[in-house]
Each structure stands twice: as structure tokens, then as C-alpha cells.
């Protein structure tokens, strides 16, 4: 993952820790999105073939256990998109009046996630009237998130319940905003997975293995390593990263 604008800098050195806090600048999400140390039970679960019944929500390894094998697993239904899905399709500009740092508006953003997709996408990402999507993993083609710098885009996806996006490539600002906010995990596939997955397939992502498994088709795919954005993601976003480096003071609890 060479094309990342965030990464470990030579100046503030990053020390690897086995535990780290999830970083959520916005409201209180209902689940964790950042890597934590996985209980081995959940990890092993994803190796087993899963029943092909729809999984209502993503399940994640969320507990920090005293394991020495850090791993994160995302599991759920995928929603499949093509190339050049721009930010207007992810969150149309008319909804940018919603302020992501306001918890109630954060949730509303989620309800509009991907509502800008042309009607040719017959399966809606979020059922009208719902605030969350039943799809927790997005699989897309090249240049995902191109267009605007609106942070509302990764926030809308995160608010709708998306844990990770697996795309062939990303537009720079979308990738950066995903990392900075920690709203979604922006992963890259080595091949065009979007051609081989269908919306509604049951998939798992094993971060430590850099692997995407489509349980519906039984195929496995290799993901590119997260690369030089890893340390920032691992720290929990740009603020946590800067705090670890001693650049900004830790906020005393209010």
C-alpha cells in the first residue's frame, strides 16, 4: 500500500503495543472498528465454513485479550460496487448540512449512506427508514471515494455500520479521512474482487492474515498489507498517533 498519505514518520517514532484503544472521534459507535487483540475462539470461527444464511450485522473480535497474536476479523454481508464510486454517490451534497461531530446527525448521515447511487443499483444499501445497513463490508473497484474531501463520506459509511471497505484502490482524501477518523478500515485487494463477489455474499476479513474470504463462493483473496498508514491506524487515528509521539498533550478526562 504505497499510496498512502499517512504513515510512520521518521521523526516521531512509533512503538508497537499489544493493546490500543479504538479511536472514535464521533459519537459512540455500537461496535469496534479498530484492530484489537482477538480472542482465539472468534478467530477460529472464521476458518470454519459458515452457514450461508444472511448475517444481520457484522460481528467482530472486540475483546482485548492477553493473547500474543493480534488479529482483527470482520465478518458480515458484503455490498458490491464498481469503479470510481465518488463521494457524491456515497453521501449526496444535500446531506452535507449534517455535522458529523453531532451524535444525532452522525446517525442520520448513516441512513443516507450510498443513497446517491443511481437507481440501477436495485438493492439499496440502507433500507429506507432504517439508520443502519445490513451490509458491513463494502467491496469495490478502483478509485473508491474519489471527488470531494467531505469527511461525511467515510463517516456515513461508518455510521451505517460499515467496518471495512475492500477496494482495488482509493482516492487519496477518502483513504486519508478513513484513517484519520477510524470510521472504516480502507483495505486493498490484489485482484478485482468486485468482479467475483455479489451483494449479499457472506464474507470475512482477517486483517492479520491479510485475507478476504467469501464464504458464499468459497473463494479466498489476498489483501495488500496496510502499509505505512498502519502505525497511524494502529495508534487509533491522527490524534492518538500524535499523542503517542508526545506532540500533543493528552486531554485530561472531563
Amino acid at each position: 500500500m504505497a499510496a498512502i498519505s499517512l504513515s510512520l514518520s521518521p521523526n516521531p517514532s512509533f512503538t508497537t503495543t499489544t493493546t490500543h484503544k479504538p479511536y472514535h472521534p464521533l459519537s459512540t459507535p455500537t461496535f469496534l472498528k479498530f484492530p484489537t487483540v482477538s480472542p482465539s475462539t472468534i478467530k477460529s470461527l472464521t476458518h470454519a465454513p459458515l452457514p450461508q444464511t444472511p448475517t444481520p450485522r457484522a460481528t467482530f473480535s472486540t475483546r482485548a485479550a492477553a493473547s500474543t497474536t493480534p488479529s482483527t476479523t470482520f465478518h458480515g454481508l458484503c455490498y458490491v460496487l464498481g469503479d470510481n464510486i465518488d463521494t457524491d454517490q456515497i453521501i449526496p451534497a444535500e446531506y452535507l448540512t449534517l455535522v458529523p461531530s453531532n451524535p444525532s446527525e452522525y446517525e442520520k448521515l448513516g441512513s443516507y449512506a450510498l443513497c446517491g447511487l443511481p437507481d440501477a443499483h436495485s438493492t439499496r444499501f440502507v433500507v429506507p427508514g432504517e439508520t443502519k445497513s445490513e451490509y458491513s463490508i463494502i467491496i469495490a473497484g478502483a478509485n473508491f471515494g474519489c471527488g470531494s474531501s467531505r469527511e461525511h463520506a467515510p463517516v456515513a459509511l461508518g455510521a451505517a455500520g460499515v467496518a471495512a471497505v475492500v477496494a482495488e484502490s482509493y482516492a487519496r482524501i477518502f483513504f486519508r479521512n478513513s484513517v484519520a477518523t477510524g470510521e472504516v478500515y480502507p483495505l486493498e485487494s490484489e485482484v478485482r474482487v468486485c468482479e467475483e463477489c455479489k451483494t449479499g455474499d457472506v464474507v470475512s476479513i482477517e486483517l492479520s492474515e491479510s485475507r478476504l474470504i467469501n464464504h458464499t463462493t468459497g473463494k479466498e483473496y489476498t489483501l495488500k498489507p496496510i502499509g505505512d498508514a498502519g502505525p497511524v491506524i494502529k495508534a487509533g487515528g491522527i490524534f492518538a498517533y500524535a499523542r503517542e509521539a508526545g506532540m500533543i498533550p493528552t486531554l485530561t478526562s472531563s
Partner: protein
Amino acid sequence: MAACSTVAPPSTSFIRNKKDLGLSAFSSASPLSSQKCKRTSKTICSVTAPKQSERKPATTGSVKTGMTMTEKIFARASEKTQLSPGENVWVNVDVLMTHDVCGPGSFGIFKKEFGQNAKVWDREKIVIIPDHYIFTSDERANRNVDILRDFCTEQNIKYFYDIKDLGNFKANPDYKGVCHVALAQEGHCRPGEVLLGTDSHTCTAGAFGQFATGIGNTDAGFVLGTGKLLLKVPPTLRFVMDGEMPDYLLAKDLILQIIGEISVSGATYKAMEFVGSTVESLSMEERMTLCNMVVEAGGKNGIVPADSTTYKYLEDKTSVPYEPVYSDDKARFLSEYRFDISKLEPLVAKPHSPDNRALARECKDVKIDRVYIGSCTGGKTEDFMAAAKVFLASGKKVKVPTFLVPATQKVWMDVYGLPVPGSGGKTCSQIFEEAGCDTPASPSCGACLGGPKDTYARLNEPKVCVSTTNRNFPGRMGHKEGEIYLASPYTAAASALTGYVTDPREFLQ
């Protein structure tokens, strides 16, 4: 992410060799085929080569190897003497800009992370410009401008271009309009500096020979508190444009040509440097158009070396001292593209992607429903002058509704006040009125990005629009099934006159 994997490793430098790339590179090939430079020289650049540039290097010290101007700005801003693409550095920010769409969220993050009573890092380096959703009855949009005002009062922000009376923008002397144009007009764009803004078209300011790029709310919240941001040094693509620009072309045609050439992701994570005799001949506003749309190619920033045109523009706009930087002769570029602009023809980007390039004349059978002239890309004074020139030359009336949204209050005043050359003293507004255009609207981002449902000229139905704006993805101007043809102000005006996508040469020759 493949985009950066093509960065030349430090051991293999691709040095620009003027002899290899001389004018002979201009062939009589088809006008649209650019000459992609294939890493012309394989000469290895010695890392210990002594400094030999006559130009002043980065102020931070002697230059060991050649750097591009973008790399030099990063080096200066991170207090380093030498940097290479791919390095991540904490950069000192000279100006942070935000607006009504992303400001409130950025302030929210700033307060959450630095505390409710935190103070911004520098009240004079933050520029706050309401511009997106202003003339609307949308309550949340109005509230967002109130949030900007409260924050600016609380933090004593020096540059806040407020609007309170939405009924008459002229009653708000502080109000400017579209942030990227206002930044330039108010003297916030200066060579050699780092400008970050919560808007993807912040790259517009690269026209001034500075590093300017768009960031998100979280990064902006970080900058508000620290004045710094962790940024990756981008490799540079160099675009050399030579040849006399025909009088039916505008900078919009040049950037549509480039995006069509390299695609909407061709410059992802990269800097795009524009040089050559054509670029040197461009006005500041035209250079802004060129840099404005680099983000449509995925670019991190666009940049034009500062010159006498730049200095002249800045003369009465800023008293802040600035120091331009220039790419070294031995700077390393990821690749170089050459264009003979004299052979270029007027272009459009067809729906639904800015890289869906076509000749305007190839689309002459595309019937259109309306024309929109406005935005940070195509709503500057010279854009309206260009449109007026076409209307004047034709002497005819428009055949489709033609909407005009000046970018800023200053542009609006120019539209109503400046005489159009060759018109016998008529202003743009008079010419537009005679041509049957809609009355120029209040300055703002307008319908370029759709916005609230009651936004002026928003595409509320699935119509076909020729627009001088920057994006034509589905739903960009409102309706998901709307079709947007991106074009220069010349082409937009010509299309308004015929009701079809039209090559402006039909009226300008």
C-alpha cells in the same frame, strides 16, 4: 496501493533532459495525442552532486540532490534540508481554510480533542469562508453558518467572511463567496506556503506556486489545535505545455485534456506541476482553473511556478512576505507529459466522469436543456468575460436557460462593472441580458454540487446540462439521472446559443 509503487527508487533517478525532450517532440500527430514522456533519460543522478542551480534553493539549507518545488515547500515547512517522495513529515501550516460544510464538524473535533476551552493555534492563520449553502431556507444550512460565526467570535478569528443578510448579499460587505476564489482575491494565496483547506478544490491555490490541498474534518481539527499535519511528500508528475494557445481555448480545455489523458486516478497521491510557455502565458485566474481540477485526476496538489504574473497579481493583495521556490534542474519527476497546445481543440467531459473526454464538435448532436456558468472552476471574472465574448460575437439569443453564478462578490461586481473588450463599453451583465440569460445570481457554490433542494439552478430533474464546473459524477448537480457535460466558458456559451453541445469556433471565428 499501486499509485505510489511506481515512484522511482532513489537509485534510479529520471532526470529531465531538455535536449531529449526538445521541441522535436512536437510532431504533427493528431492534436489530441499528447506525447507521454517515457522517462527520457536514464542518467543516474549523483546524490552528492554539488548545488548548481542559479535559483535560490529552499531556505533551510543547501540542496544535496535536486528537488521539485513541491518537495522544497515540504522541506521548508518541515524544517528539513532534504526530502524525497514517500517520506512522511510533520508540516507547519501557513493557512488553514474551512467553510460552512466542513467547519462545524472540524470545530467539533477540535473541541473534543483539545478541550472545550482550547484556543486555536493562530487566529491570524485561519480563514473561514461561508460559501456552500448560503441562499437557502434550509435550517441546518443556516445553522452551520451561525456555528462558524460563534466559533470565530469565540476564537477571535481574524479572517471570517461573514454573511447575515441572506436576502441581499450586497448588504454584507464582508461576504465573499466561493472560498477558493476568495482566498486568492483576499491575498491568502502566496508562493512557497502551505495552504490546507477542508475542500478538495483547495488545490486551486497551487496556481500561486504554493502547496495547497484538501483535507477532512479530523485533520482540520488537528491543524486548528497544532498548526501542523503529518503529510506524505508526493512524487511529481510534470506537464509541459508549449505552443501558442488558440483564442478559442481556455485553461479548462487544457485540464480536461490532461484528465482525459491520465484518467480520474492518474495522479492519485501525486503532485502535478504545470510548466511551459503556454502556462507562462496564462493569467492567474486561468492558472487557478488549471490547478483547480487536479483533484479530478486524483492529484494531491497542482502547482505552477510563480513568476511576474503572480507577483503582479499579489501586489495589492498581501503585505505578508513570501519566498517562492522552483524545481531544480535536476529534480526528479515520476513522469513528464508534453502537449502542443496550438493543436488542441475545445473539449468536454461527457457524463459521468471528468475523464470522459471528447471533442466539443464530436458532441454536436447532443441536445441540452440548460447551461450553468459558475463555481470555483468556471465562475471567475475571466470566465464570465469569456462567455460574454461568445455572446457578443454571435449577437444571438440563448436557446436554453442559462444560469450564471459569479463565484464571489468581487466577481459579481466585475460582471456588472467591467467593460467587455470590443463591446463598445458594455458590461458582461448587459451582454448576458441581451442574450437572454438568467440574471446573475448571488455569489456562492450554487448548484455545482447540488446542495439543498432550493438551491438556485439545481438540477432537480433529469436534464442535460453543459456546465463550467468541475465534476459530472451521477447526482453531482442534484438529480442522479442528470447528465453533465463539463466544458469551458466558451463552449458553455456557444452551447447555450444553439441548444446543443457546440464548439465555440462556430462563433469565435
